[in-house]
């Protein structure tokens, strides 16, 4: 029986501060022209980092069973397939615009 919480308040505060700093960072970066698609890459990379922090510490995934990891990962794995396969099709067709249909 587990009665002691797996993570201390101190680590929660650390994650909380990190999330706020990353939010400030992503907003600041949005005002700087990084050129090309780097702005999108930076914004999504920071969002991904924040999501991982929330999942690992706030959602206790770090101290959960490996089975929980598989369950949590499955959703994002299928999301990855959904987006990557669709976009690899949509972005590599020459002279075809789905929007023109």
């Amino acid at each position: 029986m587990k009665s002691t919480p797996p993570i201390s308040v101190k680590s929660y505060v650390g994650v909380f501060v990190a999330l706020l700093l990353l939010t400030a960072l992503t907003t600041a970066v949005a005002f700087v022209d990084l050129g090309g698609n780097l702005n999108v890459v930076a914004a999504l990379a920071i969002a991904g980092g924040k999501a991982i922090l929330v999942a690992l510490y706030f959602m206790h995934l770090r101290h959960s069973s490996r089975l929980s990891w598989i369950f949590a990962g499955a959703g994002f794995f299928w999301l990855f397939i959904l987006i990557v396969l669709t976009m690899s099709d949509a972005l590599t067709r020459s002279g075809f615009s789905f929007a023109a249909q």
Partner: protein
Amino acid sequence: MPTPMRKAKPVIRWGSPSMSETSTVIAHQFDDAEQQREASTLGMWVFLATEVMFFGGIFLGYILYRSEYSIAFAAASNRLDIWLGLINTAVLICSSFTMVLAVYNAAVARRRALQTNLLLTILLGCVFLSIKLYEYHMKFEENLVPGAAFAFPAPHAPAAEIFFSFYFAMTGMHAVHMIIGIGLLGGLLFRAGRGRYSPEYFTPVELVGLYWHFVDVVWIFLFPLLYLVGRHL
């Protein structure tokens, strides 16, 4: 056929008033409290995986249309108030922090702190929804709501209307999840006041916490996609 299972009823039934006094509340199909807790957590993660799929479809739609109409989407995105979006992101992160503190205090049997943090989470959720409502109001005023009254500078108008359709669908669906979450938190607050949770049994607090954090993660992606990435192409 008679009911032979009647005798196999668990000693303590779910929702019985004696729940807080007992050290363990275990349904008959589980070996122990830890296994029961594990099963509940896994069930919640299965639900959250379906939620990832649910939001994933509309995210894919947004990404696809944005790649097609990148200039119009950037022009439309710049009509959103980046500062209100930033404040709301901070509000939601604060609410996730108070939520995690609520779970912690439930685990260490500090009932008053549990109630305070649940209440703070509800209030922060309401602040988020109020700011969102104000943003919606402004979009109505600026004729940026898709439909007959939609108005946008000439070359990008049709694609900008698609952007705002995505904006309202995505933030609206997110807001619906927030409202459901606030309702669940209200239920937790009520039951916490009646002493229903103990260090041995606080699974509902933990599971609503998972849901609340998930809704936070959805916004963590919505904020850059809708408000930020249109600043530069």
